[in-house]
């Protein structure tokens, strides 16, 4: 009943009719062959057959770019499958033939099928460059029948005229047609090795395959979306992280956060610190002044004011009005030092002359420009008091 070639142990049972399943299949694997499967290039309905997902006649990539996908419509014989015990798993020989054809190159005809003593059932598949082109099935008499050879020869003739230049292969489980000559190559049972056996209800490999391309597109979309979101998220995350690490810096934290006013304030502090301090030079100069004046004989300092009081301020010390009015001596500059000195009376010399001589002396001793304040002299009986204004250079 089964064409077991010189295999060590059968891997599965070839099943063409219900009888073969009554006893159960080898390892519960039933490989449906022959009339157990109805195959057509057209979507036909047949009583007693359950349609299965159509098989694509070209690879998934080629299917994408080709205008029309060649298909093979298959249906399983209910009578056969119903006879199978529940645990039986199925595969279709036609799937193996298709896969073999789609891997082939050039122009190829594959003859598969099934034979018993009464009948030889042939599945003839035509491929060109790995694409399924045509299918036909033929029923010939049993191999032992007298007219088998004639019928087969006629068939081959028919094909060689219809498909000229095609290389003919023959596949298991048929035994080799040795008589047909060397032009027919034989593909043995290993052609079925790649088949996966599944429960009939789950026999939708090709449905999955049909969804593979759209599925892949959606998956690509999902992957792209996730990737983009992930990238965006990680960018945001790292931006946040670097912000947090910057803000956590003790320099920033110690100042209670980022405060642009603080920078401005510190800048102003720097200017303030670097500003020359007038008080230092004033006091320095006044020391020189005192030192210079004390060298002058007979002269005494009554009062020194640093800086000279502003115009309009009344000098309080002696009760003599301090020169008032802007630009008293023609210069716009405010004097730096206000100085009141006393010298003994010298009757022979006029006040102005005495004052002039004094100022020359002071100027020479101190390096300071000195001028007499307006109405800057007075006699108090035994001494003459001069009020002077000094200008410090540098």
């Amino acid at each position: 009943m089964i064409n077991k070639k010189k295999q060590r142990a059968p891997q599965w049972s070839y099943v063409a009719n219900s009888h073969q399943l009554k006893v159960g299949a080898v390892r519960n694997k039933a490989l449906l062959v022959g009339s157990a499967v109805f195959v057509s290039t057209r979507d036909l309905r047949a009583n007693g057959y359950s349609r299965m997902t159509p098989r694509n006649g070209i690879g998934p990539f080629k299917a994408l770019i080709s205008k029309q996908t060649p298909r093979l419509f298959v249906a399983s014989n209910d009578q056969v499958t119903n006879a199978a015990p529940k645990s039986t798993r199925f595969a279709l020989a036609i799937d193996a033939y298709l896969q073999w054809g789609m891997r082939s190159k050039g122009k190829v005809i594959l003859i598969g099928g099934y034979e018993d003593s009464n009948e030889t059932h042939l599945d003839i598949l035509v491929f060109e460059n790995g694409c399924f082109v045509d299918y036909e099935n033929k029923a010939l008499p049993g191999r032992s029948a007298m007219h088998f050879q004639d019928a087969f020869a006629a068939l081959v003739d028919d094909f060689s005229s219809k498909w000229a230049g095609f290389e003919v292969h023959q596949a298991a489980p048929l035994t080799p047609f040795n008589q047909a000559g060397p032009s027919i190559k034989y593909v043995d049972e290993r052609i079925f090795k790649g088949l996966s056996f599944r429960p009939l209800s789950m026999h939708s490999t090709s449905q999955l395959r049909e969804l593979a391309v759209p599925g892949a597109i959606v998956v690509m979309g999902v992957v792209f979306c996730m990737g983009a979101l992930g990238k965006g998220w990680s960018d945001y995350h790292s931006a946040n992280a670097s912000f947090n690490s910057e803000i956590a810096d003790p320099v920033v934290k110690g100042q209670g956060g980022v405060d642009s006013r603080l920078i401005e304030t510190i800048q102003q502090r720097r200017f303030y610190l670097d500003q020359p301090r007038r008080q230092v030079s004033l006091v320095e100069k006044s020391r020189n002044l005192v030192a210079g004046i004390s060298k002058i004989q007979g002269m005494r300092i009554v009062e020194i004011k640093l800086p000279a009081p502003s115009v309009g301020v009344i000098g309080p010390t002696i009760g003599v009005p301090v020169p008032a009015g802007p630009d008293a001596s023609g210069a716009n500059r405010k004097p730096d030092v206000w100085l009141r000195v006393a010298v003994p009376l010298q009757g022979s010399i006029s006040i102005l002359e005495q004052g002039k001589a004094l100022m020359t002396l002071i100027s020479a001793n101190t390096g300071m420009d000195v001028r007499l304040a307006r109405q800057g002299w007075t006699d108090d009986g035994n001494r003459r008091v001069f009020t002077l204004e000094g200008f410090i250079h540098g």
Partner: protein
Amino acid sequence: MAKSTHSNAIVLLLSVALAAVLGIAGIQGYKTMSDKAKEQTAITESVVRWKRSYMALAGTQDRWEKTYKAASGIPDMLTLVSLLNLATYNLRADTDQLVLKSDEQVTANGEALGLTKLCLGTGQESFIVEADSYGRLLAGIEQLARRSDVFLDNISVVGDKAVPQARIGEMCLLLRSE
């Protein structure tokens, strides 16, 4: 057969549409996140810039803190007098009469520096300091004037007193406010 091819085409179209929607959603999401990230980065950069300016000015800040004592560290007049430390400059003042004349915030270019100017007086008007000689008096005042945390103005040295004396119209101490 036609029907099956049809539905396959629809499934394919739907999958492409779904993928496109996912793609656009992904790009949108990425853009949103990336915009947020850019905003955040801009803020971070401003923090970095601030930090750099602060670091550049750290020397100034250091100098500032060394130059001026913190006002918070001066609890009373006595501490203020000891901070003034007139004895080191061979100057004397009647500190029993010490009054706080004014208390103002120093500003520069309209910016509050965080510096308090405390002006002192002995008695009503000026801050009067005395020394053993005019030389010492002036030397002492000069040293005082050189102190960065001391502000002096309107100094008047009176020459014909028994004890050499100077009236300092503005005798102020500069203290850090914060």
